[in-house]
């Protein structure tokens, strides 16, 4: 598999809903073995049960270079002071679930591009369904990337561990309305 130095995402990458046998994912490898087995064994099952929907990012209609699973969810407003002002107990949002980049394609902004696409999806839902935040529950060691590079706000547990991170989409929605 030839990995280009720079990926032209707009021109060469397409996004498809995960489907059985549409693209070969049998050799998909990523840095997290759990996420590797998820796309191979569980993602399609979750999809058919409407628990999560998985989208694959495909380079030149051939190589699956990453995937992201999304689902509807919410955060309780007491989880962070920035959510305290919400009029209802739960703040509706889009959960950025599992996300993984194919190992050979790491360090090519695939992860960032997938997250950016999820942002655009969340904004899309926010006017049709009601989706005020985009949030995720980070695995160990990735919260710094999400806070520094993707500007997510961390929510820590009482031990200081980041357990959830979110973006309030109103910052965008107010500007664009």
């Amino acid at each position, binding site marked *: 598999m030839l990995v280009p130095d720079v990926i032209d*995402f*707009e021109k060469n*990458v*397409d*996004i*498809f*809903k995960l489907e059985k046998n549409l693209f070969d994912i049998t050799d998909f490898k990523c840095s997290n073995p759990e996420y590797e087995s998820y796309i191979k064994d569980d993602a399609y099952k979750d999809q058919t049960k409407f628990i999560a929907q998985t*989208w694959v990012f495909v380079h030149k209609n051939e190589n699956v270079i990453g995937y992201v699973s999304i689902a509807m969810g919410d955060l309780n407003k007491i989880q962070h*002071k920035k959510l305290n002002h919400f009029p209802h107990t739960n703040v509706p949002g889009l959960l950025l679930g599992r996300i993984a980049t194919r190992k050979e394609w790491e360090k090519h902004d695939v992860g960032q*591009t997938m*997250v*950016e*696409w*999820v*942002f*655009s*999806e969340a*904004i899309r839902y926010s006017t049709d369904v009601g989706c005020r935040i985009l949030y995720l529950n980070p695995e160990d060691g990735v919260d710094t990337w999400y806070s520094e590079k*993707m*500007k997510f706000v961390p929510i820590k547990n009482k031990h200081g561990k980041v357990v959830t991170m979110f*973006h*309030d*989409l109103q*910052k*965008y929605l107010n*500007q664009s309305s």
Partner: protein
Amino acid sequence: MALREVQPLENEEWTQLVAELEGNVTKEQSKFIQNAVENGRKLKVHR
């Protein structure tokens, strides 16, 4: 200071809160989301 008495904040959180009140963080995050959404919308999705 009243807020600090009601809900104790770590130093870094306090600094961040002040920055937000002054608009810095909010502006940065707004700009970030705007760029992200613009980039995300450029991608081809097969629904």
